[in-house]
């Protein structure tokens, strides 16, 4: 019997890296022993995976402990899990969203998140963890190919558009929502990464910026007057097929009020010649503006 007791004592001692008197050892984060004593490698939720992330880089003195985010949670520890931790981040958690977000903003309020408090996401009680996953190496919303699915869980109308026949390569994983929008808020309109719609578009389409010898007024004012950047059934992300799109602004004098359709008499007559192919752009080919200074009358109509 005595030999058996000795055996058990030795085995227990061997299994411990440190004497029991020091308390449970940390597994991932500083001071996490009190938590990982229960929330260990066998936990259903992959708690330890935070170690794979930047939050788990111990050499960086700024990285948090469990209690930095979840609170001291003494009642939870004393009750051995029968009480909830002080701060929880799951979808159905009772912790108010402002409290959850304050936890993140405590360290992440600078840089691209300066305008968070003014953003629609903040004022509509969107939690950081509504989009971000912290305890995983692969935070889907930070991966270009996966991010749109996270956004589409709320922005269902955009999901419809990006699947249309004319679209930016979102479904192909080459453009992400965050290439144009800052979900954390911005100084400009529509939470865009730049201060205006046009400035955002010019990031990739700088050839449209001009100014030109001949400018097209709506082009200079707002790209989104003619284009739907999220997708369209019309080619080139246009909001309407030509000539209808142009007829939303232009007077019906000369050939400009011509009926769209098939057939017709050719030239600039109503019918196919003003409707098919590139429609009005068949002739007015430089519709975003032209820098040709040639002194001929037709120059004003973006044709050369």
């Amino acid at each position, binding site marked *: 019997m005595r030999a058996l007791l000795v055996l058990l004592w030795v085995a227990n001692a061997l299994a411990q890296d440190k004497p029991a008197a020091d308390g449970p050892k940390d597994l991932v984060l500083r001071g996490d022993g009190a938590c990982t004593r229960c929330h260990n490698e066998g936990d259903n939720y992959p708690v330890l995976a935070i170690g794979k992330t930047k939050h788990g880089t111990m050499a960086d003195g700024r990285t948090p402990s469990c209690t930095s985010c979840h609170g001291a949670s003494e009642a939870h520890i004393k009750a051995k899990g029968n009480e909830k931790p002080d701060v929880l981040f799951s979808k159905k958690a009772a912790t108010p969203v402002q409290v959850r977000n304050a936890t993140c903003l405590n360290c992440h309020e600078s840089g691209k998140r300066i305008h968070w408090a003014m953003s629609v996401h903040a004022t509509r009680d969107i939690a950081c963890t509504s989009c971000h996953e912290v305890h995983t190496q692969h935070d889907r919303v930070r991966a270009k190919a996966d991010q749109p699915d996270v956004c589409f869980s709320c922005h269902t109308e955009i999901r419809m558009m990006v699947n249309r026949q004319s679209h930016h390569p979102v479904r192909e994983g080459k453009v992400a929502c965050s290439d144009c929008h800052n979900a954390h808020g911005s100084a400009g309109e529509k939470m865009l990464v730049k201060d205006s719609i046009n400035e955002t578009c010019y990031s990739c389409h700088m050839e449209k910026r001009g100014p030109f010898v001949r400018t097209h007024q709506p082009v200079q004012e707002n790209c989104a007057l003619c284009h739907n950047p999220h997708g369209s059934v019309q080619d080139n992300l246009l909001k309407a097929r030509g000539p209808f799109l142009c007829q939303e602004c232009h007077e019906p004098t000369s050939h400009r009020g011509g009926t769209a359709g098939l057939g017709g*008499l050719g030239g600039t007559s109503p019918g196919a010649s003003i409707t098919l192919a590139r429609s009005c752009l068949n002739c007015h080919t430089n519709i975003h503006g032209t820098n040709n200074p040639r002194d001929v009358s037709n120059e004003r109509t973006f044709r050369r």
Partner: protein
Amino acid sequence: MSARSAARLGLLALAACARLWAAEEDEEIRAQKTPEATLGAGIGYVSDNNTRFGQYTGLTKQGLYPLIDLDLRKRDEASGTWINLQGRNLGLESNELRFDHERQGKWGYFIDYNQTPRYSPYTPVTRLANPDSTSQVVNGVAVPSELEMKTLRKALSAGFEGRLTGNWNFGVRFSSEDKDGRRLFGRSGSGATGSFQEFLVDPIDYTTRIWEANASYADKKLQLVAAYTGTNFENHKPRLDVSGTTSTFSPIALPPDNQSHQLALTGGYNFSSTTRSTFKAAYTYQTQDATFIDTSTVGRTDLGGKVTTLFLQGGATSRLTRDLTLLGNLRYENRDDKTPVYDYFNITTTNTATGENEPRSIKTTNGKLEAIYRLANGYTATGGLDYETKVRNTSSVRVVSFRDKTEETTLRAELRRLMSQTLNGSIAFLHSSRGGSDWQTTTVVGGGLGSNLVQPIHLADRERNLLRGKLGWAASERVDVNFVADLAKDEYGGRALGLQDGKATHFAVDAGFRATDVWTATAWLSTDDNKMTLNSCEAASGTGVCPGTAADPIWQAKLRNTGIAFGAGLRGKPRERLELGGDLQWMSDTAKYDQGPLDPNVQPLPDVTFKRTTFKLYAKQAVDKKMSLRAQYVFDRFQSDDWNWANYTYGDGTVVLPNNSQKVHFIALQLMYSL
């Protein structure tokens, strides 16, 4: 064996087991907390040539493609130094490769290379010669041939970030993107048989460079970012010369070089834990002084384009009481086009142009006030007022009616309720009203009133109403369902022609179902319907009189796009080493035109439908702890009855194949290795 010897042996055995268990446990912990690195290599097969399935990936030709993906991450625990190498689609035209080296919290730099192809869905069959050059010849080759229309963006970027002493950081970043390829283009002309259109290629050859530098400061109260951003656009083919027919439209100007410099200061300040203010001030100086491609009669060799933009934003939000939060924000942007004005087109003034270039300046002011009040029983009420005014310049003679000022006021109200942990919802209503200054009308030569029948869509009086409802229901621990409904209506006032009204609806239901601990499923269904009514007339006189005859009718088009889309996904891990998944997505969009009355020589536009079905299956079988095999199958089908290109032949004989029906099977096998 004596009892003592047996005890010794038992002790040793138990000690060995304990060490083994501890080691296994440590290994499991290490595996769970150590950054993963994976490498995947394999091969994929595309069953058919296509322009839709591989439009942005490069999987457009029938055949085999190498598939290489890597995600290599290594962290030195002692120093917190990361070395990451991530690559995606490395065997394809859409390849991406990024290298990061970072000592976390100290410094870091990256180099990134990214390619994005874009294949036009359409294929011209043409006799155009030299389509990639700036000297194209219409009908310059004897036999028409198919032309692949494609652009390719190649972007290289690099950056460095460092943390200085205290709370200061700095960063620099540079990116350079080359875009080359072909875009559908064209020109008009006139000859003995009247006017005609010819097919051309825009021979794209751009370089876009962006460089940024910033310094930032952050503490608990104050956050600041001071930044400089420079941009430069260079077009290596700014002029297109076209020969071969009687058209006089040559040379044609392609986009000119331009550049900009911006200084910006962004900041936020926490007055208290409940009150915060943010601001931004930015000044941009942009120029366009590319050498003209053709002779100017005003003695200039370039436009001397200069645009300055001042952007100011300031806002604050405060939780005044436990239940009441107020927010206010003001934005101001002054885009001032200072380009010198010359009479480039030294022509007799017409009713639509003076001959001068027309710099476009616009001042936009946008204000927002919002109150958020938390009511009893989990309700939250939000009320908001938005105001926007735009002031624009215009020229003395114009081609459309114009307003130098528009104003729009929007009132918003929303009620949200976290009804319970299983049910939440919101309903929001928005009303906006847009008006503006008196119309600046078009004139005829001599100064009389011209045709002023249309209010341009962005200047028109508009009343907008929008109703949005959302409902989220966690039906059980295993089932989540979300509903969204949007109804919007626009009414344009004032003039009989142009856009009259618009209406949009959107409905969506999304469901997630965790069937078992092994299988999860998702499904969604969305519809949308967008309508607008457009009026115009044929052959209006210069003074705006519509004949309104059978030959030249006043017409109406009820433009309508309807869409329905469905998606479903299934994920499971039926065995410890086996993962299975599948996704089905189907969508159908229809464009309708509903025209009448019609010009007697014209047949109405038929409806157009676009349908796309995408079905994906994948399986991942672990071979051992390090290695797994991933198999993927994709079926993609695109169908359309778009008549646009099928009914059209350019004046030079070029036709464009619409490629309206495409079906592709894609099979891939990849070996994944965990390092």
